[in-house]
Structures are given as C-alpha cells and as structure tokens.
C-alpha cells in the first residue's frame, strides 16, 4: 500500500516534523545571507519558515545540494590516542537518522549515481550508514528552472529512491505526501500521529517529459571528440578553481589525511577536486595530469564518458550548478553543445 497523507499547510508539516526532532535531524533548504543551502532547521522565524516553504516547493534546486548530508565535506573516521605506550583506536559515533525536506529529483538521481560508486563492493561504510539513515522528502518540479537541463538527462520525474514524494495542492493549499519506501512508510505513520491526515489522492506533477540524451551516443561522441582543439580553448578559459566540483551533486572524490597533535590524532576524509593540480600528484612528484587541459578534459570525460562505460549512466543530472557558479561561465552546455554540433556536422 502506498499511503498518501496530507498536511493542511506547509506550516503544519513543519510543525509535525519539528515534533519529530528528538528522533530525526530535520534538514531543509534555507537562505543565509542570500545563499541557498540545505541546513538543519530548528527554531525558525516566520520569515525563515516562508523561505523554507518557497525553496522546498520551488522548481529549481538551491545552490548547495543534499550531498553534504550524506558525504560531508570533512569527516573524521578514525581517532587514535597513545596511552601508556599503546595505541587506542576509536571510530567516532554513528550517524543520526535525518529527514531531508524539499530535495529535488536531480538530488535523488545524483545520490543514486553516487550509490553506484560508494555502495558497490567495496562498500563505503560511512556513506552507507548515512544513506540508510536518511529519509528523502522529494518535491517533484512542475517545470524547469532557468539553469536546469534535467530533461536532457532524464531526471525530471525520476524519484526512484525517494522515500516520500511531496506536492502542493494549489486549490486547497494542502501539502500532500506519498510514501514509496519502507522508511517513507514509517515516517508517514509518525506524521499521522503528529496531526497529519490521510488523503485519498496524490497530485501528480504536470511536467512534460522530454526524451533524454542517450548515454551511449554521448559517450561515443565524447570519445570521438577527444583530440579536438576545443579542449585547449576550454582549458585556456578555465581558471582552475574547484567551484564546479564542490557544488556538483555527483562529484564524490575525496582525500584522506591525518591530523596529529602530540599523543593523539585523527584520520579524516575531505572533499578533493580533480581541478586542483595536486589531485593526481604522486609521492615521487610525477603528475599524470600535469596541465589544466588534462584536468578540464578529465572532469568532462569522467562525467560523460568514463562513468557511462563503468556504471552505465551519464554522471551528470543537469542541475546547472556548475555553470551557474563558474566564474568564467563554463557549463555542461558548453561541452554538450559542442559535441552535439560536431556530431551533426559529420
């Protein structure tokens, strides 16, 4: 059974979620100094509540994706202390259950893409733990945002691993939730206890679904395009910062480092970016990707070619964050338009 439940208003939903805050960490998109991110929400002013409502139901993802709540930018995973000549190794506390409210279909698909990397053998325990502990409440967009290209990547209606789908009934102002997983069912039960009601129907989004790009075709076009002078041009324009990779919801590279102080220390992992020159630098000083061209090319080839070959899907969800924040305006479009053009010219 897939129960549909309804809250009278968004405010009631927030209230119900707030009641669950002893059990769950509640995360929702908020604005701070004009910057939109998913953040844990606690006590909120009326103004903040309306921001959360606006961003949760908006047809465009916020600047930050949900990624940091499953794959944090820094994460300690071993702590060690030297005591009486012996090394005492501990693993820090387990993650807490969390609800992510107002995630977008592109976020869901991006997590599914990261799953392909982190949940396949060998399984990444840190990620798995958080993934299992996360309940995603997904708002299906009704139309596309200004920078969105999710239609090309077949992401618009994808809600495969969403736990609850969310939709607003414009006429009654009700917020409808439809559970579609075990975790979703449990949360729906809990929300019912907090004053939400059962509802007979769920409103399906109106979004028209366009035919997505064929991953194999893109991969083939990319491979044919490898020697093009276009990459030289693109690399000349790129300034080599990590904005694109850090805001990308599917980028998942990390670096492992140790922090040490006297008799104790910690081993942590932290986001790394293939745009940094030291990303591929080896201990002996050799760098297999010495130039910016190699690095720029790698980023696009990883998403549009290697990922297809290894995991059978394009490594991009078309959320448009990279292009929006790139200081020199390089986006997925820049490349896709070019390879498209090049393929047609043949």
């Amino acid at each position, binding site marked *: 059974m897939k129960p549909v439940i309804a809250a009278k208003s968004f405010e009631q939903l927030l209230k119900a979620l707030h009641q669950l805050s002893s059990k769950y960490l509640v995360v929702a998109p908020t604005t701070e100094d004009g910057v939109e991110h998913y953040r844990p929400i606690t006590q909120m002013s009326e103004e903040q509540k309306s921001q959360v409502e606006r961003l949760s139901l908006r047809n465009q993802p916020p600047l930050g994706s949900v990624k940091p709540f499953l794959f944090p930018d820094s994460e300690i995973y071993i702590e060690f202390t030297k005591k009486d000549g012996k090394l005492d190794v501990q693993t820090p506390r387990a993650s807490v259950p969390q609800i992510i409210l107002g995630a977008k279909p592109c976020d869901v698909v991006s997590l599914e893409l990261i799953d392909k990397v982190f949940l396949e053998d060998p399984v990444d325990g840190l990620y798995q733990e958080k993934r299992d502990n996360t309940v995603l409440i997904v708002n299906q967009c009704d139309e596309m945002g200004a920078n969105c290209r999710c239609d090309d990547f077949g992401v618009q209606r994808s809600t495969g691993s969403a736990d609850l789908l969310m939709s607003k009934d414009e006429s009654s102002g009700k917020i409808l939730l439809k559970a579609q997983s075990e975790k979703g069912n449990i949360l729906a039960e809990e929300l019912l206890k907090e004053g939400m009601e059962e509802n007979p129907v769920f409103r399906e989004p109106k979004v028209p679904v366009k035919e997505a790009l064929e991953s194999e075709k893109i991969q083939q076009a990319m491979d044919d395009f490898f020697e093009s002078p276009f990459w030289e041009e693109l690399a000349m324009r790129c300034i080599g910062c990590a904005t694109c990779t850090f805001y990308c919801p599917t980028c998942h590279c990390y670096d492992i480092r140790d922090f040490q*102080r006297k008799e104790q220390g*910690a081993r942590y992992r932290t986001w790394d970016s293939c745009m940094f020159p030291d990303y591929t630098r080896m201990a002996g000083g050799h760098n297999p990707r010495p130039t910016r061209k190699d690095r720029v090319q790698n980023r696009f080839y990883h998403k549009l070619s290697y990922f297809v070959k290894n995991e059978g899907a394009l490594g991009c969800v078309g959320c448009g964050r990279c292009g929006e924040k790139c200081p020199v305006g390089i986006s997925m479009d820049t490349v896709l338009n070019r390879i498209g053009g090049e393929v047609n010219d043949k």
Partner: protein
Amino acid sequence: MMQDTFEPKIIAFCCNWCSYAGADLAGTGRLKYPENIRIIRVPCSSRVDSALVLRAFQNGADGVMIAGCHPGDCHYDTGNYHTRKRMMLLKSLMEFMGLDEERLLVKWISGNEADRFKDTVESFTSKLKKMGASGKVRDLRCAK
C-alpha cells in the same frame, strides 16, 4: 576559579641576535620567569610570517610573542622594520575579524636586556591568565 589554575601556553619567537641572547642572559643570570613560555629561535623576527602565528594559535597556543632587536639594531639592517609593518597589519586584521589580537605580542628586546625579557614574559603571562584560554583560532580536533 579558572584564573587560579589556568596556565597559558605561550609560543615565543625570539630573534637569534638579540632576543634569544636576552633570554639566554636571563637564564645565566638565574632570573626566574614563568615556565609558560616555549621559545623558538628564529634567525630574525621578520622570519615570522602571519602563517606561523596563526599556526601556533590553531595548535593550542594561548599567546604568541615575537621578540626582535630594537629598531635600528637589526643584524640584517631592516628585518625588524618588516616585522613591525607586517605584525601591525596582522594585528589589525585579527582585530577586524574579531580575533584576540592582544594575544599577539611584539616586543623589542636586546641581548643585554635580561630583565626586560623577564618582565615581558611575566606581564604577558599574567595578562593571558586573566584572559583565559584562547578558543578563537583553535583547531578543535583532538582538543582535550
């Protein structure tokens, strides 16, 4: 209650030619100064860049002291002129960011000013004892 038991950690960068000699003289003259201070000898006070100061704070220092030759006495002629320029900027930037700039002390101490060295360490230590532990530029991992 905190003030009574709190012993601040002070990192002192002492220039090889004047201040380190001053500290040395204090030692041979059997002057007693608080053991809160950890001296690091540097070739010149201008060797200390802002990164070293912040690094000390991050790793648990409650105060940082930079001691160099009196202006005009620098072994390298202009080293301490650079020091005072940079450290003034660092202090004002720290203040601007709301950090405790008074935890950074710059002092000119010559090779024969053992007393001045002792007095400086004493007054800086007691000042830091009153201020309590530094928490603002601290890396909190592994902090007991």
